[in-house]
């Protein structure tokens, strides 16, 4: 008996009492094909990769300390989208890149690029509101897992910013140059901040 049939027969035996999410959860036993499709469905063109790298560097530029590119953030972003996000986010991220491509982002000068990113950030405020309303509506809906597959993903800017900051501030270059890195504090003390004191990172 195939797993799918086994699951169905168990469901029947128990009086078909399973909720939709439960059946979906049980379906995970056999869901190898879904994870594979989500793993390989997301890929970027060379131009798109260049945009990702440039925007990451605009968010965290090289200053006296390393920037996003120095810390390997662009490749981290692509890897994270592949590994940790599903189709809705793949779509919204690709849409955001498309918009930038249409506006000839790569041929702009630095001032124009910064202005465009400011606009993207501004627009994302409204997109985030729409996204949050959608998430709230899904709530504990019986079909929330199915709905989630069709739902709109997190907006491009939110993904880009979150992954850039995560990639940078948890990288060895980012941590050691941005913070006071104390892997073994050895004590716990309530203290007063000194002027311009960096955050502790652990």
């Amino acid at each position, binding site marked *: 008996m195939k797993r799918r049939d086994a699951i169905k027969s*168990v469901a029947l035996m128990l009086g078909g009492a399973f909720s939709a999410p439960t059946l979906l959860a049980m379906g995970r036993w056999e869901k190898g094909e879904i994870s594979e499709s989500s793993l390989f469905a997301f890929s970027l063109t060379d131009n798109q990769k260049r945009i990702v790298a440039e925007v990451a560097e605009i968010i965290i*530029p090289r200053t006296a300390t390393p920037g996003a590119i120095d810390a390997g953030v662009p490749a981290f972003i692509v890897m994270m989208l592949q590994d940790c996000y599903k189709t809705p986010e793949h779509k919204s991220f690709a849409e955001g890149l498309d918009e930038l491509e249409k506006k000839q982002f790569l041929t702009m000068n630095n001032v124009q690029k*910064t202005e465009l990113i400011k606009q993207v950030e501004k627009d994302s*405020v409204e997109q985030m509101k729409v996204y949050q309303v959608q998430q709230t509506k899904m709530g504990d809906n019986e079909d929330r897992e199915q709905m989630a597959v069709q739902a709109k993903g997190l907006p491009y800017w939110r993904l880009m910013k979150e992954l850039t900051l995560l990639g940078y501030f948890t990288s*060895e270059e980012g941590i050691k140059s941005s913070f006071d890195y104390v892997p073994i504090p050895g004590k716990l003390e309530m203290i007063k*901040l000194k002027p311009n004191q960096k955050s502790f990172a652990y």
Partner: protein
Amino acid sequence: MNLNLKADKERTFDAIVVGSGMTGGMAAKELTERGLQVLMIERGREVKHIEDYDTAMKGPWEFEHRGKVSIHSAEEYWANSRFGTLANEETGEFFTDDKKNPYIEKRPFDWIRAYHTGGKSMHWGRQSYRMNKKDFEANAKDGIAIDWPIRYEDLEPWYTHVEKFVGISGQAEGWDVLPDGHYLPAMPMSAPELHFREKMMKKLNRPVTIGRIANLTKPQPWHTDLGRASCQYRSKCARGCPYGAYYSSLSGSIPAARKTNKLTVLHDTIASEIIYDEKTKKARGVRVIKQNTMAVEEFFAKIVFLNAGSMNTAALLLNSKSSRFPTGLGNDSDQVGRNIMDHHLGVGASATVEGFENDYIFGQRPNALYIPRFRNWGTDKKDFLRGYGYQGGASKSDWKRGITMNGFGADFKAEMSQPGTWTMGFGGFGEILPDPSNRMFLDKEKKDKWGIPMIVFDAAFGENELTMRKDMMASAVEMLEAAGFKNVAGYNRLDTHPGLGIHDMGTARMGKDPKSSVLNKFNQVHDCKNVFVTDGAAMVSSSCVNPSITYMAMTARSADYAVKELKKQNL
């Protein structure tokens, strides 16, 4: 014949302990220290203290996904990942792959497991509170389920006994609702937390204390004797502590049991059945299946302690059928597997704190504040039964605040390297009432890969819990507002299910009457007195406090009794 006799002798111990987690470890320690030869059976792989804590000393950049759960991992750990991200790259080693160990949900149940040495004691939240006097009287008073066969006074000396051994940092406060135990020095509160505590007392008359936590702030000789050192304030406990600073079976009870030279541990060994002897009316031992080779073996002992975790302990009882116990060992009352309780959570509030700009913390406190139950306590009366406690605290925001704020570029980058404002939040842990229709049972047809019937869950929160949750959110909002904090936002996550508190309990409850309970007041199975159940399965009501220290106290008490009964030749 001689060979067989010899083989049987090698398979015979004074006691068998099924499980190596929080209570299995304690049972092994207490029994070996009283002179018994103990066999401990652990279904999962062996984890060696310190040397197998692979992620303990890694820097954040050494985790590929930096703490996020990948889609692939979320599918493997689907029950773990449905709500939270505990089973991530840092700590996933100490959680169980749900895909390889499936279970059936008639109604959703978030079953979080830990199949390895130390079980869930490897990743527990370490919060350690005694149940209070009224907790033990609550069922009788409310007319809910059945009465506890014991009272606070029965457990009191055993709480003391295990608290000293475990090592709990906390503050004695003298409150009836949260009886004091034996504590190592308390961890400090931050400036906004001290402010919050003062406001709560003045404005709402609600006490706040620092969490009582099983991390060593000042190790005592019996801790250092086991190689345990002081907390280093890294707050990476769930990866396994190379200093042995937080209590687990691996840092505490198993080394203590090993010191007696009376402990044998078998890993990768799944207890499938308790062998019942119809003539002596006692258990003879335990049948096991080696998880990797599928080999079936039997081990024998005078007494058997079941500490497999509430759900697996109940499953083992249900799967142990005999002519005397056709529906499972000790299941005359049909209560095995029923009355599943847990603590419901995912409800609370958070806020931003103005002021305290110059206050900061050096080190990471692996602990939070605790606000003990105030509902239906004293003169307070609500439209639900029982109550809840809150855990939470204040923290100074770090670079993550940048994700939701506007800005990018050089100035933004510099700003993110400095601490931001304080935020404060806390979430509730609510008592769940026992309900016989909240249950797990064995599937009649479907078996796991070892041929053991699969577990089916059929449980959900009841009206009392759902009503309580509304109050849990509202009171959290009320308290943060009363403290003068801003942007107060309540939450009540509805996508949580029983099990998520990882305090699943109640499936083989104690009681005075064998007709309505599985265990007597010393945790012995009614009518099979040499089988003891001392994990969460024994619980009659759930209280709202974190249960591990109660399970451990119960285990120590029961082990002491078992050895005395053995000496009197009553077992």
